[in-house]
């Protein structure tokens, strides 16, 4: 029982169940088959008319029927959560023995709801919020109120999985999924719980969300060839591709998992974080917060750069992110970097935003377990300023026992996870 505590004397936190939904499909098997075959889930948007938009492609999840963004987020979270809980064989039916940590996008009324309210006011021209409020007062919109509460997604999932206590709903922009894992790891380490259900889900690819990112010039406009649009670290990368999905992980103390005879899928050895105070959307030019965040993660795990064989990159395919991520990796890993494989799942599934950290943690653990590194596809033109072994275009067999997964987000959010195989 030597490995029940980590190098800092804290309970080791392991993963015993995982689930995933992306534009590539539902479930780990389908996703892994397509991911390791270098297939892209990016396509021309059919969910809403694209006329007049600068970007007309996305990695939307179109096989889950839904009514609005919080509804789709809830449904994908439930699918991924079901897969993870079933694999972990933990708790009774609908009775998960620990809290829910849910990474999800912010919630707000959408245009159909605003239109319903405006119509309830019986006004059709020169509509103002005074009219919308009159519309709201005229009828019972309590179901709409509940649906568009920030807490309603977590509430539905807490009911479904029977998690304990108040669900924690988290938003740290594009680092959200990783932050959810980090909060669960901390809760297990401090003995607050033996197990936690972590889900990162994002079903918010609607018109306004797309336009918002588009107006910040963050999105690829390579609309003619959707599958080739996400090209992380390539010289001709031109932005990220917005996408949807969900990733779920059952985390437990190693002791708890072993005691109940669970299969250990991997270990969350360390979490690192460092916020950036430079700018709302851009990283400090010196990369210090990214460097600090990765180093904090390695320190937290009690390992050195030489102990890492794979980096699951944030790799969004924006000119800025990929350059800064390289600067960070080069500073932290130095001479070891050429020996480390680096790939970006986003080249195939796009940027799943609030779900990305959780989905990519699942894929990183699958990389470790299977010994296959998914490729960075669409890598035709190397960026001379970025010297990484990007596992270009074709998956590769490799012995990976320890990897890091990076997540960086607007608002100076930086999180790095250290994931490893079960201790021998």
């Amino acid at each position, binding site marked *: 029982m030597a490995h029940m505590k980590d190098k800092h004397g*804290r309970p080791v936190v392991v993963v015993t169940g995982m689930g995933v939904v992306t534009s590539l499909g539902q479930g780990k098997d389908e996703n892994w088959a397509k991911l390791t075959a270098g297939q892209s889930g990016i396509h021309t948007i059919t969910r809403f008319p694209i006329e007049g938009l600068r970007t007309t492609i996305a990695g939307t999840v179109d096989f889950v029927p839904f009514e609005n963004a919080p509804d789709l987020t809830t449904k994908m979270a439930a699918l991924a959560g079901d897969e993870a809980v079933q694999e972990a064989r933990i708790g009774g039916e609908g009775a998960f023995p620990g809290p829910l940590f849910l990474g999800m996008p912010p919630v707000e009324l959408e245009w159909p709801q605003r239109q319903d309210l405006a*119509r309830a006011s019986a006004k059709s021209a020169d*509509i103002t919020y005074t009219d919308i409020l009159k519309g709201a007062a005229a009828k019972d919109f309590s179901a709409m109120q509940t649906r568009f509460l920030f*807490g309603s997604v977590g509430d539905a999932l807490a009911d479904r999985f029977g998690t304990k206590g108040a669900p*924690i709903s988290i938003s740290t922009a594009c680092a959200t999924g990783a932050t959810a894992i980090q909060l669960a790891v901390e809760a297990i380490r401090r003995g607050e719980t033996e197990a936690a259900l972590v889900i990162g889900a994002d079903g918010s690819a609607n018109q306004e969300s797309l336009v918002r990112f588009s107006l910040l010039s963050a999105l690829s406009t390579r609309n003619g060839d959707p599958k080739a649009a996400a090209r992380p670290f390539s010289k001709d990368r031109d932005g990220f591709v917005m996408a949807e999905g969900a990733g779920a992980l059952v985390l437990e103390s190693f002791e708890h998992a072993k005691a109940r005879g669970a299969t250990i899928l991997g270990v969350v050895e360390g979490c690192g974080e460092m916020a950036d105070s430079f700018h*709302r*959307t851009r990283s400090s030019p010196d990369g210090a917060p990214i460097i600090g965040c990765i180093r904090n993660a390695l320190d937290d795990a009690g390992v050195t750069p030489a102990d890492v064989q794979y980096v699951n990159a944030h790799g969004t395919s924006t000119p800025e992110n990929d350059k800064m991520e390289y600067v960070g990796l080069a500073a932290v890993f130095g001479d070891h970097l050429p020996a480390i494989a680096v790939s970006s799942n986003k080249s195939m599934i796009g940027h799943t935003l609030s779900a990305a950290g959780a989905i990519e943690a699942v894929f990183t653990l699958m990389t470790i377990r299977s010994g296959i590194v998914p490729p960075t596809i669409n890598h035709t033109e190397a960026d001379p300023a970025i010297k990484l072994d990007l596992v270009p275009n074709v998956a590769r067999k490799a012995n990976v026992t320890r990897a890091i997964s990076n997540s960086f987000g*607007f608002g100076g959010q930086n999180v790095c996870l250290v994931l490893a195989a079960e201790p021998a």
Partner: protein
Amino acid sequence: MAIAPEREAWITGIGLVSALGEGLDAHWHALNGDREAWLKLDSTTHAPYQVHPAVTLDLARQIPDRGDRRQMEGWQRLGTYAAGLALENAGVKGQDDLLKSMHMIVAAGGGERDYAVDGQILSGLEASNEPAKFLNERLMNDLRPTLFLAQLSNLLAGNISIVHGVVGSSRTFMGEEMAGVDAVRVALGRCHAAQGDIFLVGGAYSAERPDTILHFELGHMNWTRPWVPVWERPKDGGGTILGSVGAFLVIEAREHAERRGATPIAKLAKVSSDRTRRKDGDAEHSMAVQWNEISPGLIPGATVVVSGATGVREGVAIERDLLDQRRVPTRATGSVIGHSVEATFPANVALAAMMVARGEAVPPIGDSKDEARMTRKVKQAVVTSVGHWRGEGMALVEAI
């Protein structure tokens, strides 16, 4: 299996802004004053809805850069300002080394929309033959690109990092009242377990927004009759009056505070939270369980309850079920600062700390006849939270 023995956590800094002013002294004086001092209601701007608007702030005092102020909307300015007050109060403002290791948890909803653009688009959609195409065009042309950054929930934390340099960690919790409770609970849990020595925790809510008022109107939860304290509203259907509040706490391990010679305001002893389905008395049961975890440590006659009662009928009934049996003097601050959703709980922890630090409760709030006078010395305060839809929480704040 906790790794370190539980450490004591102190509140060493408070930044509070509401209709009653800025800082604890302003709140103390207003709450001890006459009706003119504590009732700052705006009944006209959003009529028939009423709000408790935040006092006018000299924003440049906490957000010196004009570019920063311009990049934010009201809720972010309120929160960033209050966070600055808390850091100043704790004596850590501008101490970069400390701020680099300071951990932040913010409870947030979303930011302001462009109300004029929304109105124009809604009007146009009704007239358009191709509404979806029209929507794309208008959004592409009319949305201000940087408005998104004033709307994202985690950008209050982002602005606090930029303006005040808090970068040890940055997490944003969503989920209305519950987010405020859990932000404080998780910070305390981490402090107790030595997962950080110093934390900045809080939230901000702007009531002076048609979209926040709209959210409550969807459930017909706004109180539009003449003002009365929250306890008196349920008999006439119940309802909330929203209030603009920015509330941040610096929570710090005792030994860390002592080492740097910081003056504590109060001890944060315990925070608990739960989510029930609000069926068959489960919320009442949860509140009773949480109370029973705290009550063995309560000193008879020395406790005040600082309540987050919203005025919404169902929530008030759940809380009355707890309080009517315990007969502890209660102060529902929402009667005069308004309901501030995510910021409510941090604000009430702040006001609880104020009372135990002074050893004195404020008089019944808004002259409420449902709140008992209290003349004995106050040593402890229990902070309650029953969300307007979900979430039940509690905290114990003690005098040092």
